[in-house]
């Protein structure tokens, strides 16, 4: 009987440890990883002007072996440095642009396979200092990553809530501290991860609002186009209020 109980206990603990293994509950991040991929060609280099779009993809491709060996922190930074991530902001759908990058850039594909991706990307999002963004396009590469379902699926419930919390917090900062540099529609970008989490979790109040506004639905699903009607508009306030209620 004792042996049976012990066996049962072992099985239960194994099951729990397996569940835990799906999501990293805590993780430390290295903001300056030593194994960041150095792209041989980048915009601004003379050789860049000789490339076709197909060659853009080729010369910025990270070898699969390199990607597999790289730390998750290194992969995240390599994504943020990826010369073609600017194309996300030129697409009518961030989600589709992320799908394209996942299919064509080994660095992102490998990152999205890592179990630590959710935890690490969340911490990276939290650590990202908005005052240090050089361009709005760089910020888009980060928020598009955070709000990508392939990333969210690596997060547990608390981490998903943390994304919403952080998203709101960053939005508050931008509104209060950076009203001149960032336009309102760009501030929305920082709210996209919050909207995406609620959409990912099928948070009913947001889904109801999305049925009322085609623009809100497009924005949550695709990231573009930005929301109309200004800060006081239904769409903008829907995301903010739903995010606040979601966190209660």
């Amino acid at each position, binding site marked *: 009987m004792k042996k049976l109980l012990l066996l049962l206990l072992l099985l239960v603990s194994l099951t729990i440890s397996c569940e835990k293994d799906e999501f990293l509950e805590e993780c430390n991040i290295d903001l300056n990883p030593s194994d960041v991929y150095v792209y041989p060609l980048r915009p601004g280099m003379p050789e860049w002007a000789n490339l*076709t*779009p197909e060659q853009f993809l080729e010369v910025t491709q990270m070898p699969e072996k390199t990607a597999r060996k790289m730390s998750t922190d290194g992969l995240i930074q390599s994504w943020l440095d990826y010369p073609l991530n600017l*194309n996300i902001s030129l697409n009518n759908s961030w989600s589709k642009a992320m799908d394209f990058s996942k299919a064509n850039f080994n660095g992102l594909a490998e990152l999205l396979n890592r179990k630590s991706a959710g935890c690490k990307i969340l911490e990276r999002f939290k650590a990202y200092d908005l005052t240090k963004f050089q361009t*709005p396009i760089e910020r888009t590469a980060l928020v598009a990553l955070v709000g990508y379902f392939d990333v969210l699926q690596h997060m547990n419930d608390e981490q998903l809530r943390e994304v919403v919390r952080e998203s709101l917090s960053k939005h508050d900062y931008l509104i209060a501290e950076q009203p001149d540099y960032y336009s309102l529609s760009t501030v929305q970008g920082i709210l996209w991860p919050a909207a995406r989490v609620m959409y990912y979790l099928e948070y009913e109040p947001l889904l109801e609002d999305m049925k009322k506004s085609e623009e809100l639905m*497009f924005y949550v699903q695709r990231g*573009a186009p*930005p929301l109309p009607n200004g800060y006081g508009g239904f769409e903008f306030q829907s995301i903010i209020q739903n995010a606040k209620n979601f966190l209660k």
Partner: protein
Amino acid sequence: MKNTYIVLIICIFFALPEILRSQTIDLFTPNGTVVKGIYLAEFSQSEIDSRTQTIAAAYPNATVLANASQTYNCHSYAFNLSEGGSNVVWVNRIKDDGSANLTNYWTDGSYIEVCNDNIGDKIHYYSGDHTAIKSPTVSGKYESKWGPGPRMRHAPDYGPPDYIMANRRYYKRIELKTTGGVPCGSNLDASILNIGANSYTWSTSSRLSGGGSGASTSFTKLDNGSATVSVRGNFTGCTTSWSTINVTVSGIIGGTVSQSGQPDRQLVSTMSVVGNSQATVSLSYLPNPSSISVTKLSGSGTWSYNSSTKI
């Protein structure tokens, strides 16, 4: 309390333009189908500058024609603004329910798909949700708005790789018109702006007959009611898509039937027409003479009245 009111009034003052302005507008294709456009606020100046410079550096072989703007996108530029549209709006490819929006421009016959950009001047990158126009100033180049980024002049296959620029379709504005037969006349004439095809194939529904291979043709009217007229151009090695318009066939024979010499005594009639030569006329009462005068819209004539056929 007074301060609260002041703050409230200030807030309303600044929000008023957004409140008053409708967020969407109905644009129309040349054939009148609604395409939804969305008004969006512009970037801040620092963002405009930053985005324009970043994209220009990343795509050095493209020329910036206009700074980054999120008030309009590629579809709006290609089919609305470049055609003289005055509403600076964003146009989505589809609506939220998945129904058509952008594609209305070519599914309603306003534009037809053609074989190449020698003929077509609108370009749809169909795998990448992007559109462009043929540059009106530089041969061999296209011009397109890159999302909320800048408007660029570029080679047909030069741009963001996720536009998948090898997959292109070409469209040409086609003005398919019907004239001279509705409601008057026995024929319905149709013509298109000649797009330089070797020949044209005309098609129609059952209320009309005829065809032809030129840029204009004439159909014989067979029956009153709704009909369609379609045309496509035939080029060496390829054929365009069909352009179709709806027409109403009417007036083959019609007008007021009056008893001869008594124009104030109208014989209210209904007519069903078979072909263009026979008509069955149902009169509400019988006239005295054995014949009645009928004014046909394509002419006039006297039809014999046979009382034995009265019902």
